[in-house]
């Protein structure tokens, strides 16, 4: 299950022909990585189909919605897990302020794209400016945090990053920046009204779901008006025929876009990992003093990788949080718990492994995050529990007279908090039994080429691994 670079003929520019891409995909399937992900997703889909059928009946649409939901969460977690993997898995940087960097990305996006006249006002810039700006600002925040913290021990970095994420969250809650004017007392610069909206939150009418909606609607800002594009008309009618509403179709499409981003993250991380840069990161994770003693200025590597990871966290945050077109600081996305969720997903899959990261995201989203809710819904449907007591006392009192029903009902009612207990217990068990996660540490060799294959054979091969892989660079040694 290694992610080794099995295909030495991987070309660097765009693939010259379709066949090489197909060959690469085939190699990955053989390698087991893509296959494994497909297998796990298939298992999850079967499970959620069963959940949807057993749960409160919503017909075919229920099944589609269940699968869409679990895929959406898988994609969201997978993106952030991959970003965190760059920090923790690749370079051993223990960042537990992920939520803070997400918040920086999202709020920068919001400030850049929100209309100038809105409350709170923004700059009214286009979508892509918001996305790029959000990523840059998150990277900048990463640099700010990493400059002092990277000199410190791993556990100090942890505390500094989590403190940073809380500073961000508390600042966003503060009414001081609810609405303010940038450059108000700076001469020659225009006054720029901005704001976080504090507890009231901030609207993001321009967000990444708009391009998706514009596939189906001529007026994507207001889908309720129901002005379809020709393509939208066809697709939505087709789905309606099988009982799937247009909102589900739109969600499904956005989910597919997110899967594309997961693939992009995966590709980027693989490229970073399988390079001399990634090799230094790996060395830093293993033993920073050795990396230093071999002439690598590890601080620069750490700052760079920290910034890239934070930019990806910012992007992940934007794609995650802007879906509803609105955010506020009380959103779960920005709470420290979110960071721990992402961490747990990474640890489930195995820090260091990208495939593991995606799998961890999928398993976390399906089994720990969404699963318990579905199970509780199904149980509530089949066990006639009557009205659940609203308090623990109310649930416990009848137990004395051997009436367990109220207790069960109370438990089912509180699945959302018991889910946290489950997550905590899973984390402890993982650290006990399998601290390296399902796929363990990164096993792929950190190089852009296959190191085992030699260009030329010098001297008699004394039981050395095959050395016949020189065909791709055959001419190089002649000049």
């Amino acid at each position, binding site marked *: 299950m290694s992610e080794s670079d099995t295909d030495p003929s991987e070309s660097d520019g765009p693939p010259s022909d379709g066949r090489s891409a197909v060959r690469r995909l085939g190699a990955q399937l053989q390698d087991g990585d893509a296959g494994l992900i497909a297998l796990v997703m298939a298992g999850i889909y079967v499970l959620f189909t069963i959940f949807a059928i057993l749960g409160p009946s919503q017909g075919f649409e229920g099944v589609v919605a269940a699968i869409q939901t679990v895929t959406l969460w898988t994609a969201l977690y997978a993106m952030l897990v991959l970003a965190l993997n760059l920090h923790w898995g690749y370079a051993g940087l*223990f960042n537990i302020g992920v939520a803070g960097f997400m918040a920086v990305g999202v709020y920068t996006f919001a400030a850049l794209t929100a209309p100038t006249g809105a409350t709170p006002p923004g700059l009214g810039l286009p979508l892509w400016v918001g996305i790029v700006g959000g990523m840059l600002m998150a990277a900048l925040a990463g640099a700010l945090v990493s400059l*002092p*913290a990277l*000199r*410190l*021990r*791993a*556990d*100090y970095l*942890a*505390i*500094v990053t*989590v*403190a*940073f994420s*809380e*500073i961000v969250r*508390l*600042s966003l*809650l*503060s*009414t*001081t920046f609810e609405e303010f004017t940038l450059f108000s007392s700076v001469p020659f610069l225009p006054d720029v009204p901005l704001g976080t909206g504090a507890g009231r939150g901030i609207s993001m009418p321009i967000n990444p779901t708009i391009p998706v909606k514009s596939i189906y609607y001529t007026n994507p800002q207001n889908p309720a008006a129901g002005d379809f594009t020709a393509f939208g008309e066809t697709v939505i009618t087709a789905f309606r025929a099988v009982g799937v509403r247009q909102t589900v179709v739109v969600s499904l499409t956005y989910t597919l876009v997110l899967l594309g981003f997961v693939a992009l993250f995966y590709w980027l991380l693989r490229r970073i990992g399988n390079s001399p840069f990634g090799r230094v990161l790996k060395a830093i994770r293993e033993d920073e003093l050795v990396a230093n003693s071999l002439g690598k200025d590890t601080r620069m590597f750490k700052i760079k990788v920290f910034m890239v990871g934070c930019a990806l966290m910012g992007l992940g945050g934007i794609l995650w949080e802007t879906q509803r077109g609105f955010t506020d600081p009380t959103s779960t996305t920005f709470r*420290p*718990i979110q960071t*721990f969720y992402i*961490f747990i997903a990474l*640890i489930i899959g195995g820090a260091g492994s990208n495939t593991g990261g995606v799998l961890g995201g999928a398993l976390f989203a399906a089994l720990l995050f969404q699963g318990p809710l579905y199970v509780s819904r199904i149980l509530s449907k089949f066990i006639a529990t009557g009205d659940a007591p*609203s*308090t*623990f*006392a*109310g649930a*416990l*009192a009848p137990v004395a007279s051997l009436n367990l029903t109220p207790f069960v009902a109370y438990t089912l009612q*509180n699945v959302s*908090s*018991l*889910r*946290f*207990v489950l*997550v*905590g*217990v*899973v*984390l*402890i068990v993982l*650290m*006990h039994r399998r*601290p390296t996660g399902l796929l363990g540490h990164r096993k792929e060799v950190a190089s852009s080429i296959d190191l085992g294959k030699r260009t030329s054979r010098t001297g008699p091969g004394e039981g050395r691994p095959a050395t016949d892989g020189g065909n791709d660079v055959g001419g190089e040694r002649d000049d």
Partner: protein
Amino acid sequence: MATTERIADVRLAVTERPTTALFGAFVVLLALDLVFKLLGFELTAGGASLLGGSLRFGRLITLVWNGLVVGLGIGLAGIGLSMTYSILSFANFAHGDYITSGAFAGWAVAWLVAGFGSGALDGNVLFLATVGFGSGGPSAGELSVNVLQTPFAIFSGLVVAILATVAVSLLLDRLVFEPMRDQSGIALLIASIGVALALRYVVVFVFGARNRGLTAGGAKLILAGVEGKLALATQRSTIIRAQGGDVPADAFYTELPVLDFGGYSAELLTVTSVELTLVVTSLALMYGLHVTLQRTKLGKAMRAMADNEDLARVTGIPTERVVRATWIIGGGLAGASGYLIALERGTLAFNLGWLLLLLIFAAVILGGIGSIYGAIVGGILIGLTNSVSLVWIPSSFSTAAAFAIMIVVLVIRPAGLYGGVTTA
């Protein structure tokens, strides 16, 4: 000798470490600003205020007192975190939830005892035992839970808070941390996050997520200047009438025999019974711990282990016994601090400890990991920063200011104030 070393340290820091000098200059500037503000003196340039302004003396005293109260609570909680950090070599992210557990266990008992005292126990046992989760039971006011009216209930709560948290931390050590002794500090840290989540939401399951009022309003003592004399009273109205020259005969009112300073009349400080309870109890517990560690073999063993675990093993100190003692002391103090902080605030919710945790970390890092006195001093400094920073910044940033102090200390003196000087 230590002092001269310290002075030499400072001199070295200024010449060789510009960040330290910069931070020092910043602190001096703030102090200067504070003095200007108190004197009502303001330095302006082009309409913008540079230094000074106005600040009532009474407000500063109140801020300092609040800082001390909060700081002692944080310091008390920090001792345990600092001990486990140095002896078991990991940052325990579950420490905040030990605090919460202690607070809930203690308050459940305090309410039960108070309910028993006021005859409200019948039919409300489970309601009282879940510290008023739900509706229909007696309120804190009806139970009249407070330090002066139900001292026994408050005291039994404190004892149970300590015992319950000791039990929880020993149990969790047995289940979670003991099998991981040989693993890295980061692995233990991650496991402690798991413990934190599980513990916190078990608390939610049993006690609910709601914030609840704990105590019935208690007594207070007001310090005020009355026509140039310092006076103590229990009622604000007494002070106001005394300032008018008409001291009520039946109310508590004492003028303090200190110097006269003109015609100064203002309220200076209000001290509540719960604040006093927190301060006195914390100081007593800290002193008790100090004596225990100085006088007993266990204390020496703990200091040895904090310095060097391998060495302690080689020299034959029973390390598991030391580890257990660490959890007992650390857990017990965490429980006590949770209980007392909840008492002081008068409210309790499931996220009490988690919200405090980062401040406690800040205190421990500020003081120097492994140093108990460092944790106490660090706690007080964090408490003061949190509170006195209100002079300059809005209250929503006071916590951020405390974190910022922590980050600055990490940069200029990663070992903390007491780091590498003495342990335990």
